[in-house]
């Protein structure tokens, strides 16, 4: 303690013998040396060698990177670990360095030193990085990739469409390009990933009294809080938003239904088996859910149909304002998946009520998840000879 007081006393008095020159010059000199040393040390931790000095980093993510376009490509530009994982902006870089203490902690406790442990943690580690990319709008990617300097005409037509839409809102790259540098973790049963990637996961803000279209098959609920399901809302169905509460919306679905059994299946229009929604038995009978209007007999089947309007709740997500991207995705999928064994029939070859029979008969041959299957069938029905009378 005495030694400290001694130092303190010396510091707080003007120097007796050391000239102002030596003190300031040596301080200045040491400042430079310190700052140089500090930054070199800092930069040393920003090198690939440092990152892969840990075995777990070298054996997996580094090897996976070598398979990707960031490792070797026709222009010979290689991205190493720091390029993406260490922010270039100084203050963020320091923050990241402190955050790295968590990595040191993991290294000490050997949380991911074996492949099995790494795999278990892969989704968690990846999600943390994705969150960081979301937070700074994929700044790491935009250091090298820039929307303004992209040559649209070099891209495929599909890519052009999506990229221009992304460029318009300066979208964060990681929204779609997950798994571009390292193996994409197994995200469990993510539903129709390509469909969502192309069509998006729905409008950010919904307005009441406006019409939207479902981008996925969605569950229906009795009210804005219960988890008891009251049926399903089919993909590509037109709904009108009536009320918004929390992350649920009350929607109006109008259509027709067959007077068969409980009549809980709502179709797009009279006499057309194009599915809009299917309510559960008791939801269809519940007071105030389903409103019934005029009736008509369908000459093709002899069944009577009723016009109906249903008002019921569903979640806020996966409601889009434009239907065309859904039809584009469906046409593209139909053209590639359904031409493997023979030329796929033209959309106009069958009418709306024949398509389900033909399509169901062929399902065994294609790999389509439930949502894509429902979307392609609805696309074929709504572009069938019932709607498009031009000769083919």
């Amino acid at each position, binding site marked *: 303690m005495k030694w400290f007081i001694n130092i303190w006393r010396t510091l707080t008095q003007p120097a007796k013998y050391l000239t102002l020159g030596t003190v300031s010059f040596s301080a200045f000199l040491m400042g430079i040396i310190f700052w140089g040393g500090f930054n070199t040390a800092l930069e040393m931790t920003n090198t690939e060698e440092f990152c892969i000095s840990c075995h777990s980093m070298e054996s997996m993510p580094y090897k996976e990177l070598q398979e990707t376009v960031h490792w070797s490509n026709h222009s010979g530009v290689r991205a190493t670990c720091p390029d993406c994982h260490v922010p270039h902006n100084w203050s963020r870089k320091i923050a990241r360095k402190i955050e790295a203490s968590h990595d040191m902690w993991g290294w000490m406790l050997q949380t991911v030193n074996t492949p099995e442990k790494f795999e278990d943690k892969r989704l968690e580690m990846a999600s943390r990085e994705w969150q960081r990319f979301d937070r700074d709008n994929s700044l790491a990617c935009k250091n090298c990739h820039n929307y303004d300097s992209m040559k649209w005409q070099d891209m495929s037509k599909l890519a052009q469409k999506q990229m221009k839409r992304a460029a318009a809102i300066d979208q964060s790259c990681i929204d779609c390009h997950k798994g571009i540098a390292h193996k994409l973790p197994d995200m469990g049963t993510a539903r129709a990933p390509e469909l969502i990637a192309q069509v998006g996961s729905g409008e950010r803000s919904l307005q009441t009294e406006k019409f939207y279209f479902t981008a996925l098959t969605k569950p229906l609920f009795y009210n804005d809080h219960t988890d008891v399901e009251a049926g399903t809302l089919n993909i590509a169905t037109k709904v009108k938003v009536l009320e918004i509460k929390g992350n649920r919306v009350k929607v109006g679905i109008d259509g027709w239904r067959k007077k*068969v059994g409980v009549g809980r299946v709502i179709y797009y229009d009279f006499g057309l088996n194009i599915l809009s929604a299917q309510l559960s038995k008791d939801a269809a009978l519940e007071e105030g859910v389903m409103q019934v209007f005029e009736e008509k007999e369908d000459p093709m089947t002899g069944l009577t149909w009723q016009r109906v309007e249903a008002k019921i709740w569903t979640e806020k997500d996966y409601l889009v304002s434009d239907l065309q991207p859904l039809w584009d995705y469906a046409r593209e999928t139909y*053209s590639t*998946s359904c031409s493997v064994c023979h030329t796929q*029939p033209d959309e106009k070859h069958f009418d709306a009520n024949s398509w389900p029979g033909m399509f*169901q008969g062929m399902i*065994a041959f294609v790999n389509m998840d439930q949502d894509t299957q429902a979307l392609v069938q609805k696309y074929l029905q709504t572009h069938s000879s019932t709607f498009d009378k031009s000769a083919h």
Partner: protein
Amino acid sequence: MNRRHFLQGLVSTSYVVLSGASVLAPLNALAASGPKSKDGWLTTGTHFGAFKIKRKNGVIDQVKPFDLDKYPTDMINGIKGLVYNPSRVRYPMVRLDFLLNRHKSDTTQRGDFRFVRVTWDKALNLLKDSLDEVQTKYGPSGLHAGQTGWRATGQLHSSTSHMQRAIGMHGNFVKKIGDYSTGAGQTIMPYILGSTEVYAQGTSWSLILEESKTIILWSNDPYKNLQVGWNAETHESFAYLAQLKEKVKQGKIRVISIDPVVTKTQKYLGCEQLYVNPQTDVALMLGIAHEMVTQGLHDKTFIDGYSLGFDRFLPYLLGESDGVAKTPEWASQISGVTPEIIRDLAKVMTQGRTQLMMGWCIQRQQHGEQPYWMAAVLATMIGQIGLPGGGISYGHHYSGIGVPSSGAAAPGAFPRNLDEDQQPLFDSNDFKGASSTIPVARWIDAIMQPGKTIDANGSKVTFPDIKMMVFSGNNPWNHHQDRNKMKLAFHKLECVVTIDINWTATCRFSDIVLPACTTLERNDIDVYGSYANRGILAMHKMVEPLFESLSDFEIFTRFAAIMGKEKEYTRDMNELDWLKKLYNDCKKANAGKFAMPDFDTFWKDGYVHFGEGKPWTRHADFREDPEINPLGTPSGLIEIFSRKIAQFGYDDCPGHPTWMEKTERSHGGPGSNKFPVWMQSCHPDKRLHSQMCESQEYRETYTVQGREPVYLSPEDAKSRGIKDGDIVRVFNDRGQLLAGAVISDSFPKGIIRIHEGAWYGPVGKDGSKEGGAEVGALCSYGDPNTLTQDIGTSKLAQACAAYTCQVEFEKFRGKLPQVSSFDGPVETLV
């Protein structure tokens, strides 16, 4: 002048043979053209089965079944013959007259004229010039490249996809709808049960074996037809057939084969046969239905809850509408089945769980839609649709339907269509008022009567004026009907191009023939286990393509290069890139559900196994809740009476199943006085359609004096003085053929069978002349489609009706012509 002096004189002429280096070259270290020397067992797959093959210094040596295939077919012995048979197309060939005169060549000599070898570059430019000419002169309606066939297995090298993508990059063309196997069935069934049914996965065999008390095999021979499959076949259904055989022996399950002929399945199972007159099955079914109604055996609750229109079918059944009650007595006169048996059948079918299994032959006849429709009505009246081991199936004899599928995703394929942003060179879509898509079996009618309008499936089809055809991976001169009518049509075509492995009859009737290589000469990837989707198979290249044959991928990459669209065609990827893409896309689609190793490990192991699937019952979800799981019919229910079909107003396809007389029918039917015998040309036992007929040694195991066997009854043989092994001339007013007589008591009087797929080998009218362009030429080998009728099943499906065919036959006298099917173009020794 002695030898020494003579030779010395030759040297003094200082003549040196310069042109064309000697055919020999110094042996360079690496055997450039020879394949890799590693001679281990390598996996590959064909429609006949998945195999393992061993090479011995560059040549395929032994073939053994894939270890997961417990019931390999003996067609495995024909595999080597497929590759090394002498009738391989070795070089690009062009018909000489076409090469000289192009589109003004003398087309009446097609089929027996002279070919000339050309280089690949010359042949492909010739193809492009012909396409240019047709597109400019006639537009897309002049070109038909829509035919498809069974090609070879393999998702990358699917020959028809390659052809249609490349030709599609040049210009649009006429396409087809439907196919020859199930044309009528796949068109009618969506109106009745809401799905094509014929290609849909069926109730799992394990459930049928547990639950069914009676199984009805209606004109169905699974034991014969399951030998081949759409993908690399591993014959898993045979394990279940073996269990069924055991159950039949123990009397636990009663199997009835309703068929005019004793089938291979019936002999294997040792079950009973119910003989029915050919083409009269609908009458028999109506008799059974009538008995059910009069005895009240039908399931009224099921009919009311799950079907529509039974009330509008009853008047016809009971005779109120047309004055003819379809009683068992009425049915017996037509079908030849006694009324007692008909009544007994009505009881048997409605007691205990009954599984109806329909074959495909029965719908490949005139009015072929009716037996499928009436069978669905019978199943509805029995009321067991949707129960395990009950209801009706239309495909348990095809590609392993009934073996539960693993649920894994299968690999995609090389794209058949143009990529989204690509435009063809000739972008016109003006089909000059004609239809751009025609029913597949009406292409010869279209060539003969362009501009004619016919009814088809509720719409009108106007025949395009077709001037050029391109065939790849299919053999219309095998699967189409009425050869002599085809010859007349082919006279009207200006240019015919065929890409094939061997000199099929289609090649011989073409102008340009391009040699493709077999599955064993290229790398590919395929599913094995067909519907069971049991796993993915690496199809290794065993040997380099023989002679100057190329893979279809290579052929059409070069063709695209002529149009300057090579990158567009291949998406800038070679064969290996494509294999990796298809594999990795599939790996991604299966991520999380089925683990798949990386490509190189897969390629070394040879296959990835997905494992078993869960048993499943067809239509179970519909039976459980018809409202939530409606069928694909207009009403969502089973339509016994279809208002939609009734509204079409077709005389040959009314609104409910109907018995209608055929243009030709045996056993007292029309035309049976002049040509009494019915000819059945079903799928062959020792081939896949026409594939493997060229495999020489294997063909020897079943031919009679080198010709296709014709199976006939002892009585018919005796009455015509024919002994077993004689050569027989089978004829009618459409054509004539020679075949080898095989007397078998499986065949009743008045019925003969010649398997389709026998290669057409015409040898002039009196058999004297080689070559066969002559209309009415005798077929020297025995192709049944020389005799069949080229008519549509009805205005609804316009499908193939090969089974409506009456013939007569006699012992062949006179000089026996040589078989000319298997040697490429035979020149007319004029």
